[in-house]
């Protein structure tokens, strides 16, 4: 395994990202666990990677209108003839 990863290398590495999310297959997980255990610098690097991965992009609050929008879609789908978007006022 690569010894001198930069932060960018790690964050571009899908295997590392899976490990960071605790979703890596066992073998990869063991590999990364060993890798990080080798030095305090690596632990710091992983901590920084976690910060980047957890970059707090805001959730714009879509849950509340999900059901309503689903009904809107299904209403159109259920009118079998003409499948066209029904415009909303502001759309």
């Amino acid at each position, binding site marked *: 395994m690569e010894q001198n990863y930069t932060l960018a290398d790690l964050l571009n590495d899908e295997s590392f990202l899976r490990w960071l999310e605790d979703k890596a297959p066992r073998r990869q997980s063991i590999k990364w666990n060993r890798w990080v255990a080798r030095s305090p610098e690596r632990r710091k690097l992983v901590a920084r990677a976690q910060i*980047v991965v957890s*970059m707090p992009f805001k959730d714009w609050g879509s849950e509340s209108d999900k059901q309503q929008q689903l009904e809107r879609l299904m209403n159109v789908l259920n009118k079998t003839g003409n499948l066209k978007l029904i415009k909303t006022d502001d759309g």
Partner: protein
Amino acid sequence: MLVNVTKPREWDDTHDIDPDKLWSELQMGNKEAISKLFCLYYSNLYNYGYNIIPRRELVRDCIQELFLTLWNKREGINQPHSVKAYLISSFRRIILRKLKRYRNRKKRNQVYTENFFEEPFNVEELMVHFETERELKRKLKEALNSLSKRQKESIYLKFYQGLTTDEISHVMEVNKQSVYNHVSEAISNMQNYIQVNR
């Protein structure tokens, strides 16, 4: 973990919902399958759309159009490698097309690209739902502010939406190397802000 954030990428893997299976059911004309796909990805799509253009109704309409098109063309579309990446990518094209119709200007493509992720990615706003130390917040804010829109979009798709480099290259319609570069540059821009003292 230093920071705990609930991200929509988790939703793919929970609830025992298999998007590929839903896709094939959709192709056979199963309306329940499309409604499940809708529920599964609505938030991902909405949030992404709102970051591109902060207009609720427009974003909602684009989601409707995406799923209606999907339904109408269901028999002609092959099973994508990743359902989520396919939806995000089609959705982006729908939004950009709508935006073109919206703003009738010269060099419109360039204008849209420049506007991309500008207003809504107001970093103050981004931080609202984020619980962490004050200092870290401040640093993350500076870090995000230091990025170009392309870089922001790349790391947004990568870390928030959980797409792979390959998928992002389809969504953003650039090659894989460009995505890699955007991510690397974003991180190298941010890394001075992100120091860990332990």
